[in-house]
């Protein structure tokens, strides 16, 4: 190993020749990633220019921070950011701890075969597509043919048009997300728990620890590093909740709470064709995310010693 390291420094050309095929292996990925991830970064310039299709990106006229000011002054600035933040934090608050609790409970469950059944079933919804998921939500909650309203009516409660009432929208979004992905999200914690040495549990049992104490003092602390890393990553994407689900669950009646940054960027850019404005909002979003990620990562590093790099 050591001699290879020295060789690498002294005979660069030879090393490159030796690694030629490995470099060749990387070329398709590098080219495609360059074209579809790095070239668009150049397009960010449009956020500072008035897009002119004929002149191209470089030839378009500079506008400075005009589009950013326009966004900050627009009524959509506050509402989309607020909606995004509320939805994100609500989602994080609910959908972050639930998989951890689920994994802890599953791990200390004694019927092994029944546990397998529970896992198989609870993982399944994760593989349902967003479109089907939203279709199911809309069908279930429909005031005329929905099963939920049939049940409500059975108890003498008037049918509620859930999708038309904006006060329900966030709950529907977040809790359907829990239904769909809590089981699957618990896998990573369950895997971490499986790595705990059984001797640790046995020793604690000999000292008279109850099952709850095992969870509290052994299981929970041992998945904390995994949980921290995931929390950091989640915080980094707090302003970038998926376009996909929010867009499908939107309708004119709930738009005041369901219009988030990503759906707004899509509508402004691709439906209204306001190219530069949309790019500017997108850039603003990316930068805020990046800053948040770095800040949370730094904080987590200071507090617990766990960080991304």
């Amino acid at each position: 190993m050591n001699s290879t390291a020295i060789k690498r420094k002294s005979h660069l050309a030879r090393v490159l020749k030796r690694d030629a095929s490995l470099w060749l292996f990387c070329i398709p990925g590098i080219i495609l990633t360059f074209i579809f991830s790095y070239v668009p970064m150049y397009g960010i310039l449009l956020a500072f220019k008035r897009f002119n299709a004929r002149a191209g990106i470089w030839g378009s006229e500079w506008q400075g921070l005009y589009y950013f000011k326009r966004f900050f002054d627009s009524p959509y600035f506050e509402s989309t950011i607020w909606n995004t933040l509320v939805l994100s934090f609500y989602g994080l608050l609910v959908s972050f701890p639930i998989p951890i609790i689920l994994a802890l409970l599953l791990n200390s469950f004694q019927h092994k075969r029944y546990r397998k059944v529970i896992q198989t079933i609870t993982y399944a919804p994760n593989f349902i597509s967003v479109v089907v998921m939203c279709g199911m939500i809309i069908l279930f909650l429909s005031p005329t043919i929905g099963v939920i309203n049939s049940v409500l009516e059975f108890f003498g409660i008037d049918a509620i048009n859930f999708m038309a009432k904006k006060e329900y929208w966030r709950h529907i979004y977040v809790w359907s997300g829990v239904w769909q992905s809590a089981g699957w999200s618990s896998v990573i914690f369950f895997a971490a728990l499986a790595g705990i040495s059984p001797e640790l549990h046995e020793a604690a049992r000999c000292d008279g620890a109850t099952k709850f104490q095992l969870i509290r003092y052994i299981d929970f602390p041992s998945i904390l590093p995994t949980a921290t890393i995931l929390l950091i990553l989640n915080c980094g994407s707090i302003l970038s909740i998926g376009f996909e689900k929010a867009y499908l669950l939107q309708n004119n009646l709930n738009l005041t709470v369901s219009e988030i940054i990503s759906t707004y960027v899509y509508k402004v850019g691709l439906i209204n064709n306001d190219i530069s404005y949309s790019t500017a909002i997108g850039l603003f979003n990316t930068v805020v995310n990046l800053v948040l990620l770095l800040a949370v990562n730094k904080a987590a590093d200071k507090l617990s010693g766990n960080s991304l790099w």
Partner: protein
Amino acid sequence: MLKPVAANRLEVKAKRSKEDVVFDTINFIVLTLVLLIVAYPLYWVIISSISNPGAVSSGEVLWRPIGFTLQGYAEVFKDNAVMRGFGNSIVYTVAGVLVNLAVTLPTAYALSRNTFSGRKAITIFYMITMFFGGGLIPTYLVIKNLHMINTMWALILPGSLSVYNMIVARTFFKMNISEELYEAAEIDGCTQGKFFFRVALPLSKAIIAILVLYYGVGHWNSYFSALVYISDKDMYPLQLVLRNILITNEAALSQTATSEAAREALREKQQLISVMKYSLIIISSIPVLVLYPFIQKHFVKGVMIGSVKG
């Protein structure tokens, strides 16, 4: 209470205190509730798809199918858009996965070699894309300039290498294809290229299966790229067709009925459409359902490999 048992694991069991019994009971109840909450909607979609449309709309169908019929399924198979979408999705998924593998596997293999001189630089090159990107519009313009709008390449090439999947594959190669193995082959005159195809890949069926499933499910379920890049209806993937039927309700009838008989016919038609939707949900999920046992096993494996840091 105390059964005469030998092994020390069972001795532990014998020590089950009162608190443990309470804990186990609560745990059992909670997890059973979780199971029911997750399973019931899935079960309900299945029974509704094979029930009488009228019974479904009136809320009679709760525990078992009522008035068994396959009308909903028949309706789905009559729908050309759905069938075309299904075909398109198969093509996009197969082609997409092939491209994904062709790009991801060699990259992951190269980056798994400790002696590879480009390891650090290329890793950073990919890491940056995880946290920073051009965003929707600049990406759209690139694809437009490449004349890929309304072609399947717009759905396949942009996400051809998922950094997460690549890291999973890299970790796998690192753990399973040792550098010593290559050194031994090298002495016998094997080149890296030959080694990759003849030795490394045949030893990596597990990771290939994981990648096929990760990427495959991703392609099958995605609709966003198609929403942005495909406007030609004949090229819609299934998910976009589904969106039109399930969400924007294109199948719903908008004409107003005048006579009582026409109103009745219209109501029946609407009920049929709703049952057709449940059938559609099932049919569109069939590829994933059929593969689910594999998917579950391999996806879990993938998460485990992915969680190994480094």
